[in-house]
């Protein structure tokens, strides 16, 4: 998958806040070599940015403005709740989520952005891999997630303390959250992972239970199947509208999709 994503870059959708020099256009006009415009000198401006030649010719003091470029810190939040361990035999949802996390981390790192990994489990967000620009973030993410089993309590991880900023990538089924969240002056991506079996459940009669709560059981019968499909479809539509209304990019991903194609389509949104 990483070979398939080689050369893919992930530009920011909007000018990024000022920060460390990076590949994304910043909101701040700085002193880079790429000229943008002149602005009359105001008190307090850095005199080193005066265009002395223009001042000598016209006796007017102008400041030379250029576009600034900054990095866009990227945080990947992956849902590790018990509902991601489905189907129980193959764990397709979790495997696809892990592949997406590794792929997005690799693409963001290739763009020069610092990438970090958080794991969501219920209401908690655990700090797994700190943001870094070092190469090999894909391996670090794979290593962190490979040792993890959805639904099991995470040991040794620190709860998130700092507010989430920059680019947030939510990967999960959103059945246990989180709430729609777009950081201020940042951007968010919501990748809704759904198993094929959830979209088209088996037609034989089953008494299904919630992996998060085994006591919550409902019969999946011929009489209830169509109502289930309607309710699940309505919930997906509401979720999509909520994320998009908040300014996030929403993408439904099924376990039949290939992770590299999903990533390519998302970064070009």
């Amino acid at each position, binding site marked *: 998958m990483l070979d398939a994503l080689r050369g893919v870059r992930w530009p920011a959708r909007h000018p990024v806040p000022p920060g460390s020099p990076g590949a994304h256009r910043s909101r701040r006009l700085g002193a880079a070599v790429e000229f943008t415009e002149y602005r009359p000198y105001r008190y307090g401006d850095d005199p080193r940015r005066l265009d002395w030649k223009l001042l000598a010719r016209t006796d007017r003091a102008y400041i030379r403005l250029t576009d600034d470029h900054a990095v866009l810190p990227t945080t990947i939040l992956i849902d590790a709740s*018990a509902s991601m361990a*489905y189907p129980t035999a193959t764990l397709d949802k979790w495997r696809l989520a892990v592949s997406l996390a590794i792929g997005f981390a690799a693409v963001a790192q290739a763009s020069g952005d610092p990438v970090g990994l958080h794991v969501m489990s219920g209401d908690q967000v655990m700090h797994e891999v700190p943001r870094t620009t070092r190469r090999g973030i894909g391996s670090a993410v794979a290593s962190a997630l490979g040792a993890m089993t959805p639904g099991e309590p995470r040991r040794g991880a620190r709860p998130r303390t700092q507010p989430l900023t920059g680019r947030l990538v939510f990967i999960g089924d959103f*059945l246990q959250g989180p709430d729609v969240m777009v950081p201020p002056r940042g951007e968010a991506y919501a990748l809704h992972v759904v198993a094929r079996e959830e979209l088209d459940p088996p037609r034989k*009669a*089953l*008494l299904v239970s*919630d992996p998060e709560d085994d006591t919550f059981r*409902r*019969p*999946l019968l011929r009489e209830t199947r169509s109502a289930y499909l309607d309710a699940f479809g309505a919930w997906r539509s509401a979720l999509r509208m909520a994320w998009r209304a908040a300014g996030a990019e929403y993408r439904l991903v099924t376990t039949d999709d290939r992770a590299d194609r999903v990533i390519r389509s998302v970064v070009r949104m």
Partner: protein
Amino acid sequence: VTFLAPWYLVAAGALAASVVVLHYLVMRQPPRDILPTVRFIPQHPAIVRTWNRRPDHLLVLALRTAALLLIGAAFARPVWHRHRVRVAHIVLADRSRAVNRATEVGDSVRHVETGSRDVVIPFDSTPSRDSSLTRQSSRGDISAALIAGLRAASHAESVAESVEVVLVSPAVGDEIDAATDSIRALWPGAIRLVPVTAHRDSAPTAGHLTLIWPDTSHPRASLDTTSAVVASNTVVVAPFARRWGVDTAQSTVVARWVDGEPAAIEQQASTGCTRRVVVPVSTAGDLTVRPEFIHFSRLMHGACGAMASRRGGEWSTDTTRPARVRSRRAGLDGGDVMAWLVAGAIALLVAELVVRRTQTP
């Protein structure tokens, strides 16, 4: 087995099949599984009808279905057919003194016998249990042989579709008595007579006939009246006053009164025979002009021995009677079978109740 009302059996089979289906059909919770999106399934009773591939209480099921099938079979009125031969022959083989050669009787019997169910009854004065056809010195009695034959034919009806009675005999006069025709009439079919050569002492002899009519040599002690006289196949009905009797010693009865008492005898002589008739003939009335009396008179005037022998065709030319009698017993009594089947069904239902109470906690 033949069912007279097979639709009851079909209905019972359908009912038993439905019982089996209901036994395999169970209401239970469906198999469990996990679905993360279970919250979108509406509330609904978690009971479904499913097929139980490994049903419990198979003994109860077997008892129920067997009881239903037995009830259906009972109301279907089964008739049980035994393995029966097509024709059983009841062969009455004469071995009395009237027979000329026993080997001829044996050949005739073997010619008649065709199956394992055939019964050969040798007879002389009485029917014999042994199978020997050796000629005996005693007088033959066809009446006794017929009674034994009818009894054997009654038994043969259960093992054969038809029964044919065959008489291998010269059927000379001294073998036939007044009861012979009555006994013979008890058999609804024709009796096939296979004639064999009569011994010369019994065969009709040509010669001079001395007819003594009326023979008044043996007057009766008291006057008696009777209503008819029988000779061969001729019956003369009239008010007869019996004044005389006959001495049957060394003679053959050729006519009898209706109560069986001899009315005419025939005694062999070296040159012919003497026939003594004690039937009074009144000149009053029309007796002498009635056809049956004229026939009776001709019989009395017939040749020696003619009255004492019956020709074979005389037994079997009665076209109103079938040559073979079809067995009246088609099978076991349907009522008995039905009762047994219903009893069996009740027993099975009781057993089902006991087993169900034993197995059900």
